[in-house]
């Protein structure tokens, strides 16, 4: 026996076999096959087949491949070993995409990143990539601005770092930054007139088709993003799109279809006791519910038209507002074709998303066409090209205080049947016959005040690589992103006689053409080498050239000849025209070197120097360094052998990144065309004045000494994994100080100017991010339960403003948003109730109504205290259930819905004392102009309750913005291959999903989803300003591969 055995062992022998994907049974090329305990190894070929010479003493084969569980097989006497590898979700995360599109092992990184795979990203079938990340990542605040089709989202990582500049993360697709612009609806200036005439036209990062995405990796800190230079301070969202897979040279076709139904997530709570009227009595023309108590008696309502009048019971219609909204829908179809060989891969896809809004007539369409291909050429060249064409656009509803549909709707008295107003051919519903002179028919507003846009966008890049040898690679990449956005706004003429004449309007038509282009060109030389058996070196040097240009053309006819056609020739008078263009350029040179020692400690240095066109030409250069350290104690001390600790990685980094300003033309003073306004819409005096040009000295003083902004950041963190990685903790603490912020500093107007561009602000962000993950249950039968909790606390503090002066961010004059020294970013400054020195409410003697304090109050702030998310995933065989809950605590929002409901007498609080006379508790009257205050004896009565509620100072309309949302629930089932094998489908997966299904808010918020913001996705957040409500959605989806 023993002799025989010896002989057998001494013999080399050949084992062959095929490695496949366990779920698809498709061959896996490139799998490493290693004989355990030896240096003998090979890789599978394009079909997944291999052949290996097993040396004497070899007993076990190890099969390993990125993304799959490493599997061992005893050889025994076998000559053929076929094996199916199972995917390993955790393993997949180990190589991540970092700045400039580099692929690096996660364990070697000294900074925090968090990766979201396509499966988790698309499980909710959300249109927006950004919204799809909500609740799933720590340190990132993602705010969807409304439920209107195509509406924008705002993404801020680790807090705002700039006062008035861009605070949103940089978006990078396959290594090339793309534009994430969001120009306001008012094309003349690009700054929206959100007060009167707001439209959320979306933001450009939402153009991306989520189904094209392989993974999203979030580089949270400046150290991580430092190679991106100026824009690194805000962190980066690295999107990697799908590539063709090298699968048997056979094309893989994937079809994904989903259909979601949408409805309003939060309706305001209404009172249902009092109806249309004023002073406690009926008034058939009122837009308010200050009338008599409901009695159910059938009475006429609305105007008398042709000697006729409609009748209805005088009773509350609890759902009259609700009935206005439709069920919206979101129908998405995405088809992709991919394939490859060992010499090249390709991926191409087409997708269509059609969203019909909850507001009748609103819609958004997006078509995307993507191609990505790569080749490896014989003479050491490689190339990749990707190109995406996106056509998107929509039909949007106006928001704001003017004639917006939402402003009309919310004022509707409690007994007016909104749905009966829909037929505009009905003489009771048209412009003249509509019941109220104070509002207009919301259905008329939708049909006759339109805003549409059309975006054509192309972005892509070409990458060429040359491999000098195994250590040295040269890469050149050029990418561009450009789009045109053509917008048309139309307001019909209203010209009627009678009670509704006050809303007569000359009509308006405008066209805006926006053109934007960004070009990035990078050349990079990388050198990777094992210096000794213990020491590895990874060096990269490169240069970047970036150019961003914008153009806008705007023309408006502000009085129309008729309502028949939408063209600038439809005009009475002269058109207003406006053009604008700007361009910035930046040149950067960068380098990074990472030293690794024994696969457990890595030290990386990064440096970049930028030359920016936005800075004074003689002083436009700035340098910034970063250093990071990663140390895995588990590997260093081999803890995994003796303890349940698998990974005990500690991270530390420092970075100091500069920002030369994204804004052109700040270094010189100019003259500007005279324009004077009182803040209302269309009431400006605009030069030329009767043909006479007028150029005024600009109110902004240019600054020829402008310096770059600088953010200095320290970060420490830990990545701890226990029990075969079934329990993981990833924690970070960071301390970021942004200094010399470039800000248009307000100066006293008595200087002759309003602001000067200065380096004049400091702000800090300190925060903690925590992601705790676990797999409490995992059975051999395939059942697993994964849970992941993320927690984010970012403490933002404005530490310096110029001369301690508040800086206005925007908002309304009676409730503006400011940057205030010693406060977090975004403090409301609002009219407030006048109080005596004891804090009692000072009222007017004659009517008992609170007086308004002469000076406004500061109310901090829009910044939340903390936020968190919980992701639960249960999987069993082909079934997978995922539930995402997220919460945001603290922060304030101004609610115009509250203000309007108070004014219109529809808020439940207006029922105080059943609208019988009452004296405001703890109120006093000022004696003359003295410091003496006496008790108030004047009650509020039905004659002025409307005045009291309607004119409460705006500070009382600023409410707690905390919320908790059941963000996402998805259930999917992949049919077993036993079934699919009998079909021509590779995979069949069906699912149901829902988003934003439930919303919990503090008691004082009975009005809105506090995540809403109607002032666009810029820095002015926290304004509910009569916009589209947010939505919840649910539906089904199917994914087929062929």
């Amino acid at each position, binding site marked *: 026996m023993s002799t025989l055995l010896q002989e057998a062992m001494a013999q080399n022998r050949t084992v062959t076999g095929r490695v496949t994907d366990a779920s698809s049974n498709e061959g896996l090329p490139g799998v490493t096959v290693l004989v355990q305990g030896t240096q003998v190894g090979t890789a599978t070929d394009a079909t997944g087949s291999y052949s290996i010479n097993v040396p004497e003493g070899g007993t076990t084969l190890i099969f390993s491949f990125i993304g799959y569980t490493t599997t061992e097989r005893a050889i025994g006497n076998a000559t053929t070993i076929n094996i199916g590898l199972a995917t390993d979700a955790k393993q997949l995360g180990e190589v991540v995409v970092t700045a400039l599109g580099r692929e690096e092992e996660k364990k070697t990184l000294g900074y925090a990143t968090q990766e979201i795979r396509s499966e988790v990203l698309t499980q909710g079938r959300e249109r927006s990539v950004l919204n799809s990340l909500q609740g799933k990542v720590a340190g990132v605040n993602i705010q969807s601005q409304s439920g209107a089709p195509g509406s924008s989202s705002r993404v801020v990582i680790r807090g705002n770092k700039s006062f008035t500049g861009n605070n949103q993360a940089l978006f990078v697709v396959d290594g090339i930054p793309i534009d994430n612009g969001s120009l306001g609806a008012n094309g003349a200036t690009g700054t929206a007139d959100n007060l009167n005439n707001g439209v959320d036209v979306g933001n450009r990062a939402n153009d991306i088709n989520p189904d094209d995405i392989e993974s999203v990796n979030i580089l949270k800190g400046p150290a991580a993003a430092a190679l991106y230079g100026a824009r690194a301070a805000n962190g980066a969202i690295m999107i990697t799109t799908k590539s063709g897979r090298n699968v048997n040279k056979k094309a893989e076709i994937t079809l994904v279809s989903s259909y979601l139904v949408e409805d309003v997530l939060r309706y305001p709570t209404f009172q249902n006791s009092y109806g249309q009227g004023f002073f406690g009595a009926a008034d058939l023309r009122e837009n308010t519910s200050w009338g008599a108590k409901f009695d159910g008696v059938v009475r006429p309502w609305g105007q008398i038209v042709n000697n006729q009048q409609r009748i209805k019971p005088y009773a509350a219609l609890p759902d009259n507002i609700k009935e206005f909204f439709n069920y919206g829908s979101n129908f998405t179809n995405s088809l992709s074709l991919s394939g490859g060989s060992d010499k090249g891969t390709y991926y191409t896809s087409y997708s269509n998303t059609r969203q019909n809004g909850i507001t009748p007539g609103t819609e958004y369409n997006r078509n995307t066409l993507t191609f990505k291909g790569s080749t490896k050429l014989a003479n050491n060249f490689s190339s990749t090209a990707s190109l995406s064409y996106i056509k998107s656009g929509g039909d949007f509803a106006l928001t704001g205080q003017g004639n917006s549909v939402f402003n009309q709707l919310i004022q509707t008295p409690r007994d007016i049947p909104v749905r009966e107003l829909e037929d505009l051919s009905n003489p009771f519903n048209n412009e003249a016959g509509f019941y109220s002179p104070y509002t207009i028919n919301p259905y008329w507003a939708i049909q006759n005040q339109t805003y549409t846009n059309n975006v054509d966008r192309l972005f892509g890049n070409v990458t060429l690589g040359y491999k000098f040898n195994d250590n040295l690679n040269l890469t050149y990449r050029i990418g561009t992103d450009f789009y045109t956005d053509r917008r048309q706004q139309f307001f019909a003429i209203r010209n009627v006689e009678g009670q509704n004449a006050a809303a007569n309007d*000359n009509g308006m038509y405008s066209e805006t053409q926006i053109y934007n282009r960004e070009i990035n060109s990078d050349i990079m030389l990388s050198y990777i080498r094992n210096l000794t058996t213990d020491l590895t070196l990874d060096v990269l040097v490169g240069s970047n050239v970036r*150019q961003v240009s914008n153009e806008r053309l705007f023309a408006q006819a502000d009085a129309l000849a008729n309502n028949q056609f939408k063209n600038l020739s439809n005009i009475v008078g002269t058109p207003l025209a406006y053009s604008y263009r700007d361009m910035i350029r930046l040149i950067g040179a960068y380098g990074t070197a990472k030293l690794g020692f024994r696969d457990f400690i890595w030290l990386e240095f990064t440096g970049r120097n930028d030359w920016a066109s936005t800075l004074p030409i003689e002083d*436009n250069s700035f340098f910034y360094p970063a250093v990071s350290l990663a140390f895995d104690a588990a590997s260093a001390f081999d803890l995994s052998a003796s303890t349940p600790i698998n990974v005990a990685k500690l991270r530390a980094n420092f970075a100091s990144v500069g920002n030369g300003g994204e804004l052109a033309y700040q270094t010189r*003073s*100019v003259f500007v065309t005279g324009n004077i306004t009182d803040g209302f819409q*269309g009431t400006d005096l605009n030069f030329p004045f009767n043909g006479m040009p*007028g150029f005024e000295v600009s109110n902004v*003083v240019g600054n020829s000494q402008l310096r770059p902004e600088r953010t200095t950041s320290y970060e420490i963190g830990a990545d701890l994994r226990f029990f075969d990685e079934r329990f993981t903790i990833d924690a970070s603490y960071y301390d970021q100080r942004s200094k010399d912020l470039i800000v248009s500093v307000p100066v006293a*107007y008595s200087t002759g100017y309003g602001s000067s561009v200065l380096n004049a602000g400091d702000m800090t962000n300190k925060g903690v991010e925590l992601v705790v993950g676990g797999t409490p249950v995992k059975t051999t039968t395939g059942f697993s339960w994964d849970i992941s909790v993320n927690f984010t606390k970012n403490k933002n503090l404005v530490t310096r403003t110029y*001369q301690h002066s508040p800086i206005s961010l925007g908002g309304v004059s009676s409730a503006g948003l400011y940057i205030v020294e010693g406060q977090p970013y975004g403090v409301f400054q609002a009219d407030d109730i006048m109080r005596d020195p004891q804090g009692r409410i000072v009222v007017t003697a004659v009517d008992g109504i609170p007086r308004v304090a002469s000076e406004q109050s500061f109310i901090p702030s829009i910044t939340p205290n903390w936020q968190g998310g919980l992701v639960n995933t249960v999987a069993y065989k082909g079934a997978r259930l995922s539930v995402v809950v997220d919460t945001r605590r603290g922060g304030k929002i101004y609610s115009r819905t509250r203000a309007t409901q108070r004014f219109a007498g529809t808020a439940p609080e207006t029922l105080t004392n059943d609208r019988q006379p009452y004296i405001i508790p703890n109120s006093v009257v000022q004696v003359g102009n003295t410091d003496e205050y006496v008790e108030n004896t004047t009650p509020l009565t039905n004659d002025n309750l409307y005045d009291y509620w309607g004119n409460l100072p705006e500070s009382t309309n600023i409410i707690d913005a905390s919320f908790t949302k059941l963000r996402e629930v998805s259930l999917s089932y992949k049919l077993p291959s036993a079934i699919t094998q009998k079909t021509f489908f590779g995979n069949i997966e069906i699912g149901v999903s829902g988003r934003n299904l439930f919303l919990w808010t503090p008691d004082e918020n009975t009005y809105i989803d506090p995540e809403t913001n109607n002032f666009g996705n810029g820095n002015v957040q926290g304004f509910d300003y009569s916009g589209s409500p947010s939505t919840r959605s649910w539906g089904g989806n199917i994914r087929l591969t062929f």
Partner: protein
Amino acid sequence: MKIKNNYILAAVFATMLGTTSCENFLDINNDPNNPSSSTPTLTLPAGFGELAYVLGNQFQFLGNFYAQHWTQSGGANQYCDLEQYQMTSSTYDTRVWAEFYAGALNDFKYVADQGNALNNPNYAAIGEIMQVYTVQVVTDAWGDVPYTTALQSLENLSPEYQSQEEIYTGLITQLDAAIEKIGTGAGIAGQDDLVFGGDMDLWRKFANTLKLKIYLRQAYVRPQVAEAGIKAMYAAGAEFLGMDETADIEFFNQTQNRNPFFQTQVTFRGGVDVVASNTSLEFLQTTNDARLDNFYAPAEEGTNAGKFIGVNQGVECTPTRLGLLATNYSKPGPAVASPTTAIPLISAAESYFLQAEAVARGWVSGSTAASLYEQGIRASFDYVGESDATATALLQQPGVAYAGGTVEEQVEQIITQKWLSFNGTQGFEAWTEYRRTGYPSFIEPSAASNLGGSLLPKRIIYPNSEATRNENYPGLQEVSVPVWWDVKD
């Protein structure tokens, strides 16, 4: 395609060569959208526009409400703050105070500075005269304000608040220097002078009338200074604006070129707010004044359709309001609320009334106070387009015919008619002269007043922007605190 290739080539080139071509490649930061320089010709109209806009809009509302030509209708409550005499530090800030200092004053200063630098004294004179005019409006509104240390850009970020007394003294000096420059150099282009089309003789008259106005404002607080100054003017043969010489800025019925009150109230608000105050309307009716249908329009609907009917001041902002739509009352009429209504800086009528007061006070002689008063009324009729015959008819009316009497009785009659002539177009001056003189004596506080007693607003609250940005901000002054020259009960 050619251009695109060039760009890509440039980008590649720059990448390859690194920073050698940096300088030119990055030297692109010149704003292509706005000029980096201007001329007096291009900037003077902007200054006029800014001044006229505020006088014709925010100050038109403020002045005509406080002087009780207009009041809030019950159909809305947009301007109840004005009726309640309620004002905050944000009310007249970034669109009013800012438009005066960073708009009109800074642009007039540019015109004056450039006029001096380019050796064109006429431009310098116009720029300086208009600065004086504007500063007087500002100090009359807010009291102590930045003056000599204002408008210095980053050189002085906290301009000092000077006493109104000091400012009034300074204005005379500044005005005298400006008058000296008139006509001493080459003529100026006409079209950019939106007031007089380049007629420097009229500018001299305007400056004299302005000087008279500045002196008379001090008639109660510094009578000796006023008297001496006015006497000196007459001794030097000063000429004033006469019939048909109203200094005003015209508006045009074109997009965003229309009268700002028309644009804001009639167009944007749909005319739902402003209606006639009975204080003014009933006085016109009592005296059978033919200007009634120029200043006001008849009610469009309701029981008084076709008639002239007003609302008692402020009552529609009180619990006893009726709540009727503005269309049930007289709204501002064709002479004050049309797209092309001009905004007078100093009207011919005002010039005569100023002269009449100077004579009535016995400080100067020449024409009688009575004849100057009559000419003031005739100039007002002329300006709104009423015939001289109707003016003659009015002058027969009891209470209108010049009655003489004590100085104070004469001043009351002059100011009361001056107040009427300001209806709808010079609201701010109407309120300001009411504050100075207490006339018309029949003005009672708004029914909605928050001030209590017989108090009326005496000033505008300092803007928030000054409170937060100017280290010399003097602190809150309530609306009930009078300005320096406001000493008469």
